[in-house]
């Protein structure tokens, strides 16, 4: 390992990227801030420095530069090539595709690093789900997000949830283009903003695969706005980007409008952020005027972009408040106490300090916004929920709001009319999600009743630390059926395999001797806590094992405890639920068991498990059909190959098979023509409800219980979703497709982003 120094330490990889898209960056005025350098620690994406690092294809992402419209692959960059290593990458240049690859790689990696820092765990992409039977789905680990920098010839870039890939487009600037000289090619992959935005979609999809479903008016808006918020503040967290701009405004420094104008300019240059940041302000002649907050904005805003703009504006307002309070002292010092600066260029030291404060404020806001994504319900999130998530997440890490950040968020969100539905007073205390004890008390349980709940949780502490033993105990005492035991054993085997792979790989690196597989005794340590130190594949398998284990434990819980967690239990309430083959009750999906590790104020680790429980029902556009199927269940049709006919539940042939007629598929199945159009056979949407549990890793107390407003068996929630779907059709993207939720959530991003930039 030639380039490693004596201590085995590899210096970080430094790569240059464009801070702005070329249209803005190429202006003479912006020459000094055109580039920023992104630093990626070697261990973060390790590679053997003696062999080529093409692509780049590393631990998290693989850049594949195939341009099918041109029928060409483009020369891949080798990040380990000497001239690249020594020069902080290929020089920024629009004409060299290798720079494009370097840029998407570096910006995506920086985004991933920010999430890992904020969440305290490794970023995993959404797995691939394949249907393996009528009710069975198989998930496969996806190690790398694919990035195709030149996949499309249009003004579009999007995350494709099916392909787990980012697709970027390029196109010719039109005659009225603002982004680039007419006739030149505009590459969306060279826009810092857009690369971050799309990467965030992919990361959020990995955290919350159900967020791409438009179950509330805010759902897609949240996806969009969140991606834009990260893009905006990630740009602001590079202080050198701001320094120049702050200096350039000379004496007339109204810091508020400056940052707002910047945020908008960055986003608008290539069109993408323009719509989302439209609520920040507008140009009045030559001066930029911020839009005053409007409490009614959300009632007027229709469609994901308009609603997302309100959220972006609210977060931006919180940022400005924080920045202002952090810099007011600097202004007083610089102005001799008056706070009003004299005319002329301002002191370069002050410029540096202001830029630094802005960058730090941006970083804080970014961390808060990202952390909050662990504190939202698993489905059907509203902006009000997101506010509660922001406040709770920050509160649990920093119980004292010394700098007033939470106050800033509450003030900004309420000014823009974002508050949780049905909350009479919006205070920090009211916004905090309840703990289990609080929820139990609200549900009318006296304290004594809450104790059995805690006893159940204590079992969990014990079992989480000894997964192998837990499985054996469950099996020995026949607490769960054999099929579940087999499943857990299979999970455990995969964990073991992944562990061995990790160990072997490490051994290869040091001395070439394979590690021996001495894990036969089973894993009797808490595997979840190994999160940041092991391979991501291993983490993936561990999370799966624990979610199944958690499900097994949960299936033994008393109904009143599950009800408290917002689960529909007991007798089979509506036939639109999927019935668990094991408990006979409505199925509960344990969606995710993951760890969130944060450094608290004293540097202590705050470890929490995040567990998501989801229940789903089939939804129908027509309330009468809904009522019928809730009562009688879905008509069942099975294909009998021998009789070549479709049979109903009683085995009577309903329709004969005719290959000419029966070639139409829907919901992954082939249907006879007579039934494909019959609404009873096909749900129109899935209605989901559930809760997120935040569990203290040491004590296993449920710190936060984050439930959707309605339970899955509550028809009010279903009606609300149906109404939303029906209304959203009014704002459909085109005159042919139905409401968002009925369409394919997989295509949501591609359609939402299409042709947003009008050049």
């Amino acid at each position: 390992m030639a380039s490693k120094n004596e201590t085995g330490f590899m210096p970080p990889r430094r790569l240059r990227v464009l801070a702005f898209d070329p249209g803005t960056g190429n202006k003479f005025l912006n020459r000094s801030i055109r580039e920023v350098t992104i630093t990626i620690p070697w261990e973060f994406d390790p590679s053997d420095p003696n062999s080529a690092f093409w692509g780049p294809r590393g631990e998290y992402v693989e850049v594949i530069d195939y341009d099918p419209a041109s029928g060409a692959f483009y020369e891949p960059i080798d990040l380990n090539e000497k001239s690249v290593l020594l020069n902080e990458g290929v020089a920024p240049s629009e004409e060299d595709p290798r720079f494009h690859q370097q840029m998407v790689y570096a910006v995506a990696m920086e985004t991933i690093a920010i999430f890992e820092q904020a969440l305290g765990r490794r970023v995993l992409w959404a797995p691939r789900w394949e249907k393996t039977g009528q009710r069975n789905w198989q998930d496969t680990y996806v190690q790398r997000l694919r990035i195709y920098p030149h996949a499309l010839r249009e003004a579009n870039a999007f995350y494709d949830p099916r392909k787990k890939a980012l697709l970027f487009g390029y196109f010719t600037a039109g005659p009225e283009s603002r982004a680039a000289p007419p006739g030149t090619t505009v590459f969306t992959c060279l826009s810092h903003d857009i690369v971050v935005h799309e990467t965030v979609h992919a990361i959020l999809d990995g955290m919350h695969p159900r967020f791409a479903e438009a179950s509330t008016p805010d759902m897609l808006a949240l996806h969009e706005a969140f991606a834009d918020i990260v893009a905006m503040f990630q740009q602001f967290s590079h202080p050198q980007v701001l320094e120049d701009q702050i200096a350039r405004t000379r004496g007339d420094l109204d810091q508020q409008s400056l940052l707002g104008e910047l945020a908008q300019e960055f986003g608008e240059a290539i069109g993408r952020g323009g719509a989302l940041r439209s609520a920040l302000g507008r140009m009045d002649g030559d001066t930029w005027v911020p839009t005053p907050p409007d409490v009614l904005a959300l009632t007027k805003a229709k469609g994901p972009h308009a609603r997302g703009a309100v959220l972006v504006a609210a977060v931006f307002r919180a940022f400005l408040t924080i920045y202002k309070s952090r810099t007011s002292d600097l202004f007083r010092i610089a102005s001799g106490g008056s706070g009003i600066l004299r005319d002329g260029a301002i002191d370069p030291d002050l410029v540096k300090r202001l830029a630094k404060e802005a960058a730090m404020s941006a970083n804080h806001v970014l961390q808060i916004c990202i952390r909050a994504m662990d504190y939202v319900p698993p489905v059907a999130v509203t902006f009000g929920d997101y506010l509660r998530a922001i406040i709770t997440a920050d509160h649990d890490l920093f119980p004292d709001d010394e700098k007033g950040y939470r106050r800033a968020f509450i003030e900004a969100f309420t000014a823009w009319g974002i508050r949780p539905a049905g909350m009479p007073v919006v205070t920090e205390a009211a916004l905090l999600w309840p703990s289990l004890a609080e929820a139990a008390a609200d549900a009318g349980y006296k304290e004594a009743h809450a104790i059995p709940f805690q006893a159940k949780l204590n079992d969990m502490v014990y079992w989480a630390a000894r997964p192998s033993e837990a499985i054996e105990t469950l099996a020995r005492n026949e607490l769960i059926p054999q099929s579940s035991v087999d499943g857990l054993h299979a999970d455990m085997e995969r964990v073991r395999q992944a562990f061995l792979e990790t160990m072997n790989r490490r051994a290869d690196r040091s001395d070439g001797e394979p590690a021996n597989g001495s894990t036969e005794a089973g894993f009797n340590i808490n595997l979840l806590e190994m999160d940041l130190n092991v391979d991501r594949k291993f983490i993936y398998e561990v999370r799966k094992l624990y979610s199944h284990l958690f499900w097994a434990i949960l299936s033994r819980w008393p109904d009143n405890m599950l009800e408290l967690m917002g689960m529909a239990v007991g007798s089979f309430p509506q036939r639109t639920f999927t019935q668990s083959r094991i408990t006979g009750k409505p199925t509960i999906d344990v969606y995710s068991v993951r760890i969130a590790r944060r450094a608290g104020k004293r540097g202590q680790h705050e470890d929490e498990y995040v567990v998501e429980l989801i229940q789903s029902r089939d939804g129908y556009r027509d309330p009468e059909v809904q009522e019928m199927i809730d009562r009688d269940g879905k008509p069942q049709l099975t294909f009998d190959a021998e009789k070549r006919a479709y049979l109903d539940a009683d085995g009577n042939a309903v329709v004969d098979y005719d290959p000419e007629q029966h070639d139409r598929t829907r919901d992954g199945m082939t249907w006879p023509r007579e039934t494909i159009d019959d609404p009873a056979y096909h749900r129109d949407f899935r209605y989901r409800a559930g809760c997120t549990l935040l569990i203290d890793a040491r004590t296993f107390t449920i710190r936060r219980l984050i439930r959707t407003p309605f339970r899955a068996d509550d028809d009010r929630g279903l009606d609300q979703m149906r109404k939303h779907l029906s209304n959203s059709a009014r704002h459909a993207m085109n005159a042919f497709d139905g409401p968002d939720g009925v369409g394919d959530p997989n295509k949501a991003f591609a359609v939402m982003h299409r042709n947003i930039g009008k050049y």
Partner: protein
Amino acid sequence: MASDPTMKAPRSGVRIRMYRLGHGDCFLLAFPGQEGSARPPVHVLIDCGYKPGSQVPDPETGEDIRIDRIVDDIVAATGGKVDVVIVTHEHQDHVNGFGTTRDRVPIFDRLDEIGEVWLAWTEDGNDSLANRLRRDYHDQLIGLAFAEERLGMAGADPEQVQLVSELLELELGGEEDSLSPGQAAAMIRERFRESLDKNRAMAMSGHTSFAVEGITNKNAIAYLRGRATGGVRFLSPGGAPVALPRGAKALAYPLGPPRNEQLLTDLDPREQEAFHMRPPFAMDGAAQTFFAAAAAQSGAGEMTGSPFATRYRHAAATVFATERPEYADDALREASGAVGKLEFMRGVYGPKDPDEDPTDAAPWRRIDADWLDASEALALRLNDEVNNTSLVLAFELPDTRQVLLFTGDAQRGSWFSWADLEWQTEDGTVDARDLLGRCTFYKCGHHGSHNATMNGTEQDSWANIDWLGRGRFAEDFVAMIPANTAWARGKKRPWDHPLPAIEEELRRKARGRVFRTDVDHVDLDDLPEDTEPLSNAEKNAFKKASAEEALYLEFTVYD
């Protein structure tokens, strides 16, 4: 009983017949005529077209109603003479009836006479703006036709291919018996290539105009223009109200298509604020880049290549090749390092044919056809823009001054343009808000789609559903929706026509008095929530004024 097949006009008012062609428009109106001893009614035919395959069954026989029966009925109902034929816009589901032939004879030859033909100003060959719009429109059509071909070759999502083909078919026309699906597009591609082969030196626009001459929709309109004994009129919004022939007293107020180019593009209001507007039918940079690639690889047009220099490019064929004789020499391979790179790219992306190597896990992650997805957006946009060229007419009855609104398929942009219109009449100034406030009959636009009936309130500054039928006119509101819901919903990728929200709003507003092509009988008791049912007297009046036949649904507005 051998009844008289002619369609009578009420003594005062108008009778409106919606033919049950399927997904498409065909309306016959009978106004009381004032001339001649028998005072025969003045018959106005608005559009005649349908999406092939969308026909509705005859409730008696269960057999699909074919266009021939409908044309025969029109001939019988009018006694062989239609006074005015109005074509709202150049889409298959509005015009293909006029282009249908049997044994090479147009079926509309069964009519003895066609009087006047009314078209929107966008069809006027003497209007320079209209000419420019048409030229741009044709360029886009050709581009789209080539994109469709590519889409079929690239193995794209079949639902998407179907949507693009169908949208294209709407633009090009074609009728079931004469053309198979996709044939219309193939034909114009062929004409384009033929023209290209003949004269390489000719400008692209020359090839385009040669190619589009083959479009069936155009032939349909040409046919009508050729038969108009009373001449062709081009109507513009805000132009003077047009009188019907033979003394019929109703006046037609043209509301659209807007002459404002921006409103023809039908962008979201949000986008209007944020971005500059693109002129309708013009290709922006993105569309140009896209169409260039689509056409280039289809063998038409110049090869427009990659944005990168040759030294950075590896032809896909080279990357996908499994044998590399050109690098057989070890020394050469070592020196260039190229093979390693090629193998790397192929290894990561996968082999040429995704099925070739079953061990490769990546086929589902490939992007071979994704770039062609843009064709769907472009096809939809083109469809919107043509819809917005719809001739929108408000017919005002002379006595009660009730108004019938026929919007064609006009979408948001057109609706937004109406608010500013004014007309000078003998009784003073009439503006759009006043005119639409008197609307008691509404022909629902674009089969009830999402933005062809604008949502809003009476106070809003743009025309919308709440502007229609206000005050004393609110009591009598009736609507007709030309749509075949089962057909639209049963498509592989369902069309939401009509949008349930809009249909429900119309049914609430009309208190149940809404006709739909595929519904044999209007059920006045099946009402949306919170809707006050009609009184018995109102029900009887409605029943008396309507007729529900196998071939058509009919309603009479009494003046």
